[in-house]
């Protein structure tokens, strides 16, 4: 074969979540000689190790980043991209609506594939044959109720702009042939026809590839699929009378006990030392409450007290979650974001003083 007829090494960008499906999709491509690089998007809602990182009781657990771990197992490069700012529009205004909770899964997938499309277009423009030829995802028809259905597959391809450069190796045989298949870059016969929520075909394929250690997040890897988390986000919007959020807001929804005694203020109370330390970093942004006369949690006040009575009530609630809950009095420090502090002494709230309805989430 002369140099002029050497086949071009085809390259793909794969959306890698860190879960098994995208891992298998990459592996299937590698088996066909495709050079793959991974891309992983940080939306701010990623479950990825956050609670482990924060909570002390999980300190000894494995805190690996699954996307990086997958990349290392597969021997691929990995680009991790912070899309948290642009992603707000997906969460706030999903064209295709939400799933069971505040999860805009279909819009999310379209957005991510679109980001990957922009990457491959840019790479092809700058790098020519060293650019990327197509996009790979681990999608499986019927796997997820909101986004991975037979009728959503073409919507994702079209609305993302990827069109027939989007290949789903695990269910390709159930879909029309894409450009990589038609051009012979990949062999359609060696792709798969997985469908439905049954995980057995994936397990068998993992076994075939000798992969025995992989993450299997139950509800995906996104906090927005979590009912309690979605309730907290909805509560935040209601309290603010507008649907918006900052990255700090959505990080704080992952931490602590959230109680809303009044529409205009919420307490975020740490449950253990790790959360205490995490919330500590936010004291310059919020009024905070700590116990002075006994060990206790750190609480942030999201909102403002309208009067002294509300302040005393909040202090009593925080005291209820301290070591001094059975004592007659507990002294606490109320510190404003600017550092100005004062002490109050209160009788700790009783269980009945903290109605379940105040629990957000």
């Amino acid at each position, binding site marked *: 074969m002369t140099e002029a007829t050497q086949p071009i090494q085809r390259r793909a960008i794969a959306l890698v979540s860190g879960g098994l499906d995208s891992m298998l999709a990459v592996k299937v491509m590698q088996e066909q000689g495709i050079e793959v690089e991974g891309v*992983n998007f*940080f939306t701010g809602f*990623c479950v*990825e*190790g*956050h609670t*482990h*990182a*924060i909570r002390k009781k999980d*300190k000894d657990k*494995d*805190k*690996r*980043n699954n*996307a*990086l*771990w997958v*990349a*290392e197992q597969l021997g*691929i*490069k*990995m*680009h*991790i*991209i*912070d899309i948290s700012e642009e992603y707000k529009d997906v969460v706030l205004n999903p064209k295709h609506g939400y799933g069971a909770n505040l999860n805009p899964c279909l819009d999310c997938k379209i957005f991510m594939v679109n980001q990957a499309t922009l*990457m491959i277009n*840019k*790479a092809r423009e*700058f*790098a020519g044959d060293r650019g990327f030829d197509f996009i790979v995802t681990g999608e499986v028809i019927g796997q997820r109720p909101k986004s991975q259905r037979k009728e959503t597959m073409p919507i994702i391809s079209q609305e993302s702009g990827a069109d027939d450069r989007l290949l789903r190796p695990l269910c390709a045989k159930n879909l029309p042939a894409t450009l990589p298949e038609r051009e012979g870059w990949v062999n359609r016969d060696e792709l798969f026809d997985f469908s439905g929520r049954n995980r057995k075909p994936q397990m068998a394929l993992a076994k075939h590839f000798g992969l025995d250690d992989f993450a299997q997040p139950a509800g995906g890897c996104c906090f927005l699929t979590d009912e309690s988390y979605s309730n907290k986000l909805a509560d935040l919007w209601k309290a603010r009378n507008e649907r918006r959020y900052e990255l700090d807001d959505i*990080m704080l929804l992952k931490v602590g006990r959230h109680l809303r005694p009044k529409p205009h203020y919420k307490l975020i109370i740490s449950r253990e030392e790790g959360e205490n*330390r995490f919330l500590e*970093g936010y004291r310059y942004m919020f009024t905070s409450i700590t116990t002075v006369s006994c060990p206790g949690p750190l609480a942030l006040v999201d909102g403002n007290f309208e009067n002294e009575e509300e302040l005393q009530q909040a202090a009593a609630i925080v005291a209820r979650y301290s070591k001094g809950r059975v004592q007659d009095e507990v002294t606490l420090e109320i510190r404003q974001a600017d550092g100005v502090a004062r002490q109050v002494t209160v009788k700790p709230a009783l269980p009945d003083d903290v109605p379940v309805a105040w629990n957000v989430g």
Partner: protein
Amino acid sequence: MWGDDMSDVIHELDTRRLLCPMPVIKTQNKVRTLQTGDQLRVISTDPGSLNDIPAWCRINGHEVLETGEQGHEVYVLLRVGEDNGALF
């Protein structure tokens, strides 16, 4: 030891308070602005960084020179490899 290295300058990156994967993303973006052989010391309060940043270095061909913990903080000292990872 640091004195033997090609570059004397140790760049610093503060990722305190950020959680996984932000320390890795910040490291990745910082390294893209550095040259082969440059050293970067990343400071983080997320203990997961001690796993993730070295893993990211292994994947992308950068060398981890030192890792450690100081109180509630961890650090990773790395040397930028041949490809700083800039996409285009």
